[in-house]
């Protein structure tokens, strides 16, 4: 398989690929590369922090939890921050690469957050478990997660007083998209989700007494449907497969839909809603490797950050700084803006985020220094600038970067090949022209220069 295509595959289904692995895979055929990639994600390694203390504080009922409520909230906040950090580490060193990338994708599809960490973590791992599984099972599992019943108020959905929030978002955001159902469909399906609740530990509890037992008419069918039935009826709509395929195409292939490619995906997905088969199909298709799909997407903040860490390992000594950095870049894991999630694409970019993104590689990896530019600064001026940034940003980015790792990994890469490893797209003429005027002192410094280009934002 061609270098360029392997890199593309790994940038989209992961966060990049290092030279040794690239070299190894280039001996194989595409089919073998793709099979190997998916085989590595057969297992699920959950991401779990110890919750015993939290469970102890919560006990088994609301009554036992009540006196500890503030401790529970505080511990939850701290643990959620830890999980955020652990998740980023996981993304940087994943065993199951595709599963992890898909988990990140689904976290912006089945968007949810909660102030109880136990429920947050359960929900998070539900995404991981089902990331490559069957979409029907996935939706059912999500509908019964404690965090979700809280987030979209299914818990408050009772036969005397229906709450339509979950039913509406289930169709609008999770399965069909706006305009593909009626207000009546929402009313009727909300009845089917009455009685959903959870116990203290976060297990699903069905409260029969508040469940609406009776006929519901939904998408032309009438019956005493429960929540699972409603999900089945939704998935019978081909629109559901279309909605998910479009979203996957936009995320993994191209912001702009190509109808025939999406149609081909729908045919695969609608058969049995198997996510792994769908993704395998995408990665095996010739069109996935078309020129217009390579290096043409804008990285999400997490893809950007994890991408840097993949090439040059960076450890944040202060976890709060990593969190703050995510905030400045516009994407805090486990803290979505609302159930609609992050808009993505060009929406990641505003004046503040582009300015920070361009400056970040040098801030994290090289005391903010990018290059000895044409303006011919003296060493004193350079030193003064470094000191300035150390004063103003040094404390905010208390990090340790491992350039030895980079030098080791890229030992067989020539200076003039480095750009093809670091950048996903071709360099613009201006950028190439300018970089050619700069002295190439070391691979390390050239790497910083490449990472400081707008081109580095592409994947």
């Amino acid at each position, binding site marked *: 398989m061609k270098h360029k295509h392997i890199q593309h595959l790994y940038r989209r289904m992961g966060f990049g690929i290092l030279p040794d692995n690239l070299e190894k895979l280039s001996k194989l055929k595409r089919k073998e590369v793709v099979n190997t990639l998916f085989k590595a994600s057969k297992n699920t390694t959950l991401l779990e922090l110890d919750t015993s203390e939290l469970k102890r504080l919560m006990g088994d009922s609301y009554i036992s939890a009540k006196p500890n409520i503030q401790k529970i909230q505080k511990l939850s906040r701290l643990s959620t921050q830890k999980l955020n950090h652990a998740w980023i580490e996981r993304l940087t060193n994943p065993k199951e690469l595709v599963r992890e990338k898909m988990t990140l994708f689904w976290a912006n599809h089945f968007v949810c957050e909660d102030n109880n960490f136990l429920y947050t973590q359960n929900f998070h791992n539900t995404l991981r478990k089902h990331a490559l599984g069957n979409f029907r099972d996935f939706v059912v599992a999500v509908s019964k997660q404690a965090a979700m019943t809280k987030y979209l108020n299914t818990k408050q959905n009772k036969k005397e007083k229906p709450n339509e929030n979950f039913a509406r978002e289930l169709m609008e955001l999770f399965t069909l998209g706006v305009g593909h159902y009626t207000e009546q469909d929402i009313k009727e399906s909300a009845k089917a989700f009455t009685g959903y609740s959870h116990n203290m530990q976060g297990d699903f509890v069905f409260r029969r007494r508040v469940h609406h037992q009776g006929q519901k008419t939904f998408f032309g069918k009438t019956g005493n449907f429960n929540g699972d039935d409603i999900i089945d009826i939704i998935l019978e709509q081909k629109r559901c497969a279309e909605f998910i395929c479009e979203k996957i195409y936009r995320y993994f292939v191209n912001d*702009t839909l190509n109808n025939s490619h999406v149609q081909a995906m729908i045919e695969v997905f609608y058969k049995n809603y198997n996510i792994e088969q769908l993704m395998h199909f995408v990665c095996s298709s010739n069109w996935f490797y078309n020129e217009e799909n390579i290096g043409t997407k804008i990285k999400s903040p997490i893809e950007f950050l994890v991408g840097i860490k993949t090439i040059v390992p960076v450890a944040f000594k202060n976890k709060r700084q990593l969190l703050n950095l995510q*905030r400045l870049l516009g994407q805090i894991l486990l803290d979505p*803006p609302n159930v609609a999630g992050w808009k993505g694409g060009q929406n990641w970019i505003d004046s503040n985020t*582009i300015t920070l993104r361009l400056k970040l590689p040098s801030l994290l990896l090289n005391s903010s220094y990018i290059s000895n530019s044409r303006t011919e600064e003296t060493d004193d001026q350079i030193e003064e600038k470094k000191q300035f940034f150390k004063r*103003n940003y040094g404390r905010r980015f208390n990090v340790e970067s491992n350039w030895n790792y980079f030098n080791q990994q890229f030992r067989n890469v020539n200076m003039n090949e480095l750009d093809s490893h670091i950048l996903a797209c071709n360099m613009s003429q*201006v950028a190439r022209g*300018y970089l050619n005027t700069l002295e190439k002192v070391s691979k390390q410094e050239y790497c910083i220069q490449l990472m400081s280009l707008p081109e580095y934002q592409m994947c």
Partner: protein
Amino acid sequence: MDRRKFLKQSSLASSLFFVPSFVKAFENVASSSLGYKRLVIIQLSGGNDGLNTVVPFQNDIYYKERASLSIAKSDVLKLTDDLGLHPSLAPLNRLYDQGYLTIINNVGYPNPNRSHFRSMDIWQTAADSNEYSQSGWIGRYIDYYGETPYSAIQIDESLSLAMKGETKNGIATQDAQTLFNLSRDPYFKNLQQHQNDTHLSEHNLGYLYKSMIEAHTSAKYIYETSKTVSSQKEYPNNKFGKQLKTTAQFINSHLNTKVYYASLNGFDTHVNQGPTQKRLLNQYAKGIETFVQDLKAGGTFDDTLILTFSEFGRRVKQNASSGTDHGTANNLFIIGNQLKKPGIYNKLASLDSLDSNGDLKFEIDFRTIYATVLKKWLEVNDKKILNKSFKQLNFI
């Protein structure tokens, strides 16, 4: 040519010869229009307790439900026969006396949400409570009417949803220098030279280059324009005071910015509300009074309208921890000297007809206030921005 104009033109001219056409158009805007009306939005985050801010000091229910939290009648700064301000709002009281303050009571929205995140989200996006939007109301204002990212500035490190549009965004900066410093590497300057329009129109990569140039030009413009002005007023020494000082500096230097966004956090007073709210309201009022004086000295107060809101009010009945829980409708302040109805705009809702949670019923949809400000103050099509037609109110 006056000094200001000269400075502006010379600072822009230095960068004009190499820039692509879109930036030229963008910079021309900057030097053309001055003296427009502007809006300052102050967000009180956490849910400020409106009932202890504007106190119904003749109301028995208020004193009954707030046994230890109520503000004694003798301490209230009386505005009318039945409403008065929290004692730490004396500076606000002075603005009131000068006819610069309108208090709008019972502001909220149908089917209120009592989660901070969600309710703030609703206020920032101006969506219905069962609708989720990925763009904010100021963001959409910029989409349609903003010529540059600095058409709306948030005095913060990053943008909140309110400032993000469908296709354009505002800009966030804590002060004039931080963003400028971050952008000021010769490496970037060199990358921006010789860019041509064809490259910049490339889908995503072109967009990134364009955003970089726009951002760096904006940061430079904000820095170079505002550095000519500094405030003579003593602001309270806290984060909020600093934000207002920066805002006044930007306004008084006549930055071509229509909307400013600042915030004061910490109003989530579930426990021992008294001292916390007192401190925060004091910060708010002192800051605002200084801000108004600063704008007056700069001759910009006439053209500035200040809107203060919080995502919700708090429950009428206090809780067991000498605090209050999340509520619904709340009061909202409009400050300026072009007010049609200075004073109390409408009566406080009845405390004996609460909703099933024991919260005030809302009377005025906050989006009617947005609609009014957009149409009558910023003179734009409010319906386009709010995606819906709302009634116009009569406070400006």
